[in-house]
């Protein structure tokens, strides 16, 4: 697959993009990359400045689940671990480092017999519950549609095997509703979207159709290699030029138009929609998922009577919320690179491997660039 990073290929794609933008009246063309993995790839390969030269400005969107999860969820998890004896709170690594008013899951002092465990797969959390029958295992599960089917399968396994010391603290988010919220808010001017590759592997391409039909915005689903991203941008520019908003699938090697039917089925079986609060974007109708009533006994919020009342927090002046809706670029945050750095993050956008602040900090404009001498 080396073609996907080949210098010559990248160079010619950038040239093609520059030719296409040259024919358009207003530049730069502003595209939002919805997915944090796209953000990382764009920065790692130094594409942002090269694209700017070619007339395209990339804006990061709300595509990092760790980043958009409001502090209230982290604080509820921190309180739970510090006040309840004999529990194991299992979660993904990034989640343990998000700073809040109560510290983080990494710095929390657990109650006696309790601990925080990092897992790589949701399935491991069920294994933990089986191996520790004397403890309550709470899986703090965060994710978009890419991750949600695996989380749903883990909970279903616990339900099928009647595991009673297991529950899910769910921070599950679905991608299309915040895109509507961003466009409808008119806070940012956008000409189109790069849609996430692996969320789309699950949901397919249809859920983005409304952005083309109702808002006249073109977009393309694409993969994560530099050439994938540039091919998709070239295709979007064609749509802009022709005045034909549509949703293209430029990641056909992975994404089927209908998505992954088995994954969608398990999600529908276990979960239902709810209105949910996103950092930076506030309440968005039907943008979150929770366990269905039938599985309530596996819902940690109910099992431990947790009160999660999300609000917009600007912990220590962090502007992650504005970064997530594309309103500011990370370097515009006064803390960026000063008091907020990867080893002392002030907000989730600097913590997560997919956070825009981390991407800017790590690769910045001085990062490893593809040079053409």
């Amino acid at each position, binding site marked *: 697959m080396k073609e996907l990073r080949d210098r010559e290929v990248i160079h010619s794609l950038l040239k093609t993009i520059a030719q296409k933008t040259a024919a358009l009246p207003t530049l730069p063309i502003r595209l939002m990359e919805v997915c*944090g993995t796209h953000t990382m790839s764009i920065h790692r390969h130094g594409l942002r400045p090269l694209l700017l030269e070619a007339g395209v400005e990339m804006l990061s969107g709300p595509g990092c689940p760790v980043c958009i999860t409001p502090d209230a969820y982290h604080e509820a998890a921190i309180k739970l671990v510090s006040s309840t004896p004999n529990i194991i709170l299992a979660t993904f690594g990034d989640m343990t480092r998000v700073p809040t008013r109560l510290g983080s899951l990494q710095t929390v002092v657990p109650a006696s017999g309790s601990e925080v465990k990092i897992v790589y797969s949701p399935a491991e959390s069920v294994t933990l519950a089986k191996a520790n029958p004397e403890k309550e295992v709470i899986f703090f599960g965060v994710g978009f549609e890419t991750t949600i089917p695996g989380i749903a399968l883990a909970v279903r396994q616990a339900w099928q095997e009647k595991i009673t010391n297991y529950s899910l603290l769910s921070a599950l988010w679905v991608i299309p509703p915040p895109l509507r919220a961003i466009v409808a808010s008119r806070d940012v001017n956008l000409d189109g979207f790069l849609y996430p590759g692996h969320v789309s592997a699950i949901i397919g391409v249809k859920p983005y159709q409304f952005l083309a039909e109702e808002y006249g915005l073109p977009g393309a689903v694409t993969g994560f290699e530099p050439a994938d991203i540039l091919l998709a941008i070239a295709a979007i520019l064609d749509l802009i030029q022709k005045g034909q908003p549509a949703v293209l699938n430029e990641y*056909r090697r992975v994404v089927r138009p209908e998505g992954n039917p088995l994954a969608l089925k398990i999600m529908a079986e276990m979960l239902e929609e709810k209105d949910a609060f996103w950092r930076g974007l506030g309440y968005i109708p039907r943008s979150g998922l929770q366990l269905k009533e039938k599985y309530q006994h596996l819902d940690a919020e109910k099992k431990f009577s947790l009160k999660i009342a999300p609000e917009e927090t600007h912990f220590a002046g962090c502007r992650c919320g504005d970064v997530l809706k594309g309103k500011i670029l990370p370097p515009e945050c006064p803390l960026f690179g000063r008091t907020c750095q990867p080893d002392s993050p002030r907000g989730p956008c600097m913590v997560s491997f997919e956070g825009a602040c981390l991407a800017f900090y790590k690769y910045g404009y001085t990062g490893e660039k593809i040079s053409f001498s």
Partner: protein
Amino acid sequence: MCLGIPAKVIELAGHNRGKADYLGTKIQVDFSLLENVNLNDWVIVHAGFAIAKLNEEEAAETFELLREYARFLETLPSEKEKK
């Protein structure tokens, strides 16, 4: 978080479990979200679950398109000639 890695299926055990090879490393994979997985298939693995199969024909088409782009570059005047 939505990082998915392309890996080749090298072992299929019962209960939809198995192993895949990612750049020479063997990883445990749960195949419950896919139908008809066979040995040597390429899949995208995310958080321990295979979430999609790689369509090799489509992959080949993309690569062919990219090779065309590389050739297209050769037809452009070089930077030096322009100056």
